[in-house]
């Protein structure tokens, strides 16, 4: 966990830290910060080794498949596990209530927070109702509304990202899809409260980034975060959607690569086999990571936090001059 870097760790945490440091030196990688939350040393070691190794084409594809796994926990699965007294709020006060995004308030580790997140559906009915987690401007406006409430009342904002992308439909376009994705990001840039985002499944393009401009951005071990889906990329660049696996490997949408590229701050470990295998354990690990990330930024003054948030994203990209 990122927090441990700054605060003196406890006894068993110290041991974890030594192991992590050794592995980090071995692999010469600045990652592993997300791995400290699991208490079991053996599994920790396995996880660290798996995360630390350079992912192969198969590894990347496995993350793509796990990120989209139908049994993978969705935002509401986490909400009920990591929040007490969750109250979901509804509506954008303009046009509708977009079920592809959920937003609400709840108690996290004893303090009130706002939660926003994409929501996919598991069965066919729910998937249709949730529009496969693809939000419309209405959804982003709902998220913005709840974030504004949080900001006014001093509640930190947690955001869970899990979408194939913003909905590519006629009315979504007519209602200003591009503009609202932009305004949602701007609203997050301006928040005075601490914010932590975590990609918990698919972090698909603009639809994902709309709610991911946070003080800390985490990614679960098997989540993906990408500018375009592997299929979309393959169709455009290889002119063959069947080349998705190749495209994914070229794209590097996996957590390990996102960390290396400086796009995320830490990787959140998942239970053995992936988050779908054990929702409770996945939630426990996620909650620990969110708590640690929040703690890192909670101490700052609002202005300072906002400047740091801006500086963090300002630095992204690679250039030669």
């Amino acid at each position, binding site marked *: 966990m990122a927090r441990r870097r700054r605060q003196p760790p406890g006894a068993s945490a110290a041991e974890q830290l030594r192991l992590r440091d050794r592995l980090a030196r071995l692999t010469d990688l600045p990652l592993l910060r997300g791995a400290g939350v699991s208490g079991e040393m053996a599994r920790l070691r396995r996880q660290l080794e798996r995360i630390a190794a350079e992912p192969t084409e198969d590894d990347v594809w496995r993350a793509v498949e796990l990120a989209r796994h139908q049994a993978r926990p969705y935002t509401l699965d986490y909400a009920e596990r990591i929040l007490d007294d969750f109250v979901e709020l509804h509506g954008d006060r303009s046009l509708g209530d977009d079920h592809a995004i959920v937003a609400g308030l709840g108690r996290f580790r004893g303090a009130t927070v706002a939660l926003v997140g994409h929501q996919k559906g598991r069965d066919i009915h729910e998937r249709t109702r949730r529009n496969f987690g693809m939000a419309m401007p209405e959804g982003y406006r709902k998220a913005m509304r709840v974030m504004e409430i949080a900001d006014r009342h001093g509640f930190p904002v947690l955001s869970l990202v899990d979408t194939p992308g913003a909905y590519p439909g006629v009315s979504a376009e007519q209602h200003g899809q591009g503009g609202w994705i932009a305004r949602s990001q701007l609203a997050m840039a301006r928040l005075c409260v601490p914010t932590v985002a975590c990609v918990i499944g698919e972090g698909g393009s*603009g639809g994902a980034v709309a709610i991911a401009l946070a003080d800390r951005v985490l990614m679960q071990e098997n989540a993906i975060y990408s500018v375009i889906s592997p299929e*979309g990329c393959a169709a455009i*660049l290889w002119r063959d959607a069947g080349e998705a696996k190749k495209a994914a490997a070229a794209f590097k949408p996996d957590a390990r690569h996102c960390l290396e590229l400086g*796009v995320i701050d830490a990787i959140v470990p998942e239970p053995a086999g992936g988050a779908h295998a054990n929702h409770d354990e996945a939630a426990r690990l996620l909650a620990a990571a969110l708590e640690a990330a929040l703690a890192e930024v909670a101490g700052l003054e609002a202005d300072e936090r906002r400047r740091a948030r801006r500086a963090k994203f300002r630095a992204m990209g690679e250039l030669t001059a």
Partner: protein
Amino acid sequence: MASRIDVSIEHRGPPAEASSAQRDPNTCPSCGSHYREDELERALRVCPQCGHHFPLRARQRVAQLVDHGTFVEQEESLRSADPLGFFDVRPYTERIAEAEVSTGLGDAIVIGAAKIERRDCQLAVMDFAFMGGSMGSVVGEKLARACERAAERRLPLVCVTASGGARMQEGILSLMQMPKTVCAVDLLRESRCAFFCVMTHPTTAGVLASFASLGDVIVAEPGALLSFTGPRVVQQTTREKLPDDFGLSESNLRLGHLDAILTRGELRPFLGRLLALFEHGA
């Protein structure tokens, strides 16, 4: 399951480049009139016959907009670093080199200080000819630096966009140019600088969904495609029948997303008026 593409580069409506690729660049794709280069240039590359707006290169745009001799380019030397070592059918580095040669630009945006109708401003102009105006690290960086320079000098930023979206070859880093440029605009706002955006054909996907939509005032050229997802993908994904003017400037104005549609000839005086109105202390 719907397709997940939302950054593809597409064209539709009046400026039908796809089919005009083989045509003479000085033949109007809309009415078929043909012009000599000097005729077209004098007409600001707008068809005198039917009003079709031919694509403009970034330097042509700068020349049309700013007071003669006032443009001082900035950050020309920035280049992409190929962070993924990306290779599809060809290496990314090769594509960039080719784009550099064919356009004479370092990337898909040109920034600089300028005067428009005697008012100082910061300028950022995109060029669709450079890899479809796609936004990678360099476009994001130069746009961010344009915001910072404007903030430092307390000047308005005038931005002319033309982009198919993210520079896919830079992967997730191209996506991150969205929050990066949004943060730059946030700084600009905090510094109480004005931001005017001129959207030209096409302005889509990641550019539309970040800094471009955050202008205090947003105008567009006629007939430009301005949509997050392009019409072909919307059509394929949803099987919905698209309105005839789907995503074009005209429907965007009607639907409340634009302040005005301006022909190329109206653009400079309009910006001059805006710059004068926003010229304020503190």
